């Protein structure tokens, strides 16, 4: 599935987040959809980074499906997690 150079996985063409399959450091570059993307935050292994701008209230898409909504604007290359995403189904 992954070559040794792969650092992020985009699971579905519709997705606006990708999964880091190794820990990424701020300032690194990764390749997504054939384009270079600058990593803004440190992204731990298994965590997500935005591969497009996601506005407040917009859906976060992974596996081609809705996994929650952004609670603040998320820039491309930023860490996407509980600090800026809320579940649409079981919010706190």
């Amino acid at each position: 599935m992954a070559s040794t150079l792969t650092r992020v996985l985009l699971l579905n063409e519709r997705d606006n987040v990708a999964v880091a399959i190794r820990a990424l450091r701020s300032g690194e570059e990764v390749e997504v959809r054939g384009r270079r993307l600058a990593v803004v935050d440190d992204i731990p292994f298994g965590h997500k980074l935005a591969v497009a701008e996601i506005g407040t209230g917009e859906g976060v898409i992974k596996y081609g499906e809705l996994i929650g909504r952004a609670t603040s604007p998320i820039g491309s290359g930023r860490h996407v997690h509980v600090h800026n995403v809320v579940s649409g189904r079981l919010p706190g």
Partner: protein
Amino acid sequence: MEQLTGYPRPDGRWGVRNHVLVLPLHSAASLAAERSAEGLAGAASVGHQWEGIEGDPDQERIASTLAGFAANPNCFATVLIGIRREDTAIAKAAVRRGGRIHLVAMADHRGTAGTVAAVRPLLERLLAEASLTQRRPMPISGLVLGLECGGSDALSGITANPALGVASDLLVAAGGTSILAETPELIGAEHLLAARAATPEVGRRVLEVITGFESAIRDLGVDVRGAQPTPGNQAGGLTTIEEKSLGAAKKGGDAPVAGVLGFAQPPERPGLQIMDTPGHDIEQMVGMVAGGANLAAFTTGRGTPTGSAITPVLKIATNTAIYRRLEGDIDLNAGAILDGEESLESMGRLIYRRLLEVAAGELTSSERRGNREFAISRTVSPMTAFSG
């Protein structure tokens, strides 16, 4: 592939193990159950905390769990330890569900010590009888596979779960049964499952069960963010319940959904079944085993050593780091997919092959360690139930 073998049971089901189980019907019988089985090879016991206090609104659910567990086809026979000899309802239900059941009442033996003294010779006799039964050629349709994920991380939905989904599809295609459960961990994926329902009625039930659990949680009016996803899930990169669910549902592969089962309810037909259980790893496993699962596959991202007293549980790591770190606790490494060593397809075939080997008698890591976690699953908060 070699011929699958197992133990035929009188009701037509098949066991892949031949345990003699000692199961308490009351919390006060747990110690007697444990002591009775201690040191006897082939005897298994579990303990629990249920007291069956009058008016328990979960009485029926719990009785059905205990009866189904006792009647699991991996048991050659089961000794139930109750308090009074008149309390026969669970034993009768276990017999109706195909179990070979002996009931011993503590009140006939003045307490724990006398009960243990009475049960041990009975166990020795049953174990001797069990040792005379031989494995026989078994059809794949005799397998009922419980699917589980626990201690999930963001890789669960990318490596181990979809690979297990491939294995589940192979089993279903060969005439076997798979059980997908963990209802709260299907919230956000129910539309995908309902779309695969074999009949409109099954599709309706899928939506009903999953959204029903969701409203039950909402009705609690509490913040569930620390529980779903769990702290470990969040540390592993899972952000919301939808994200966890979409990954969890991949264990069920792409097969049509053949039926929807209540907690601990046995499937009526082969194929992929959805069982309504909590996400709690142990409650879920007990529910599936009580429903007749004679084999289980359990994917884990953070690593967890749990097993079942009577059903072999194959542990599959989602990433290589945790597989190496907890190697003695985990059987297979689906992290090989990310490492470029396996494809989803080849990993799925490998899991399927290993499951058949385990069914044929190979011990899993949790069986070797003797893991036998057990839990009673409730639907009603005891406080609400008992405060009147």
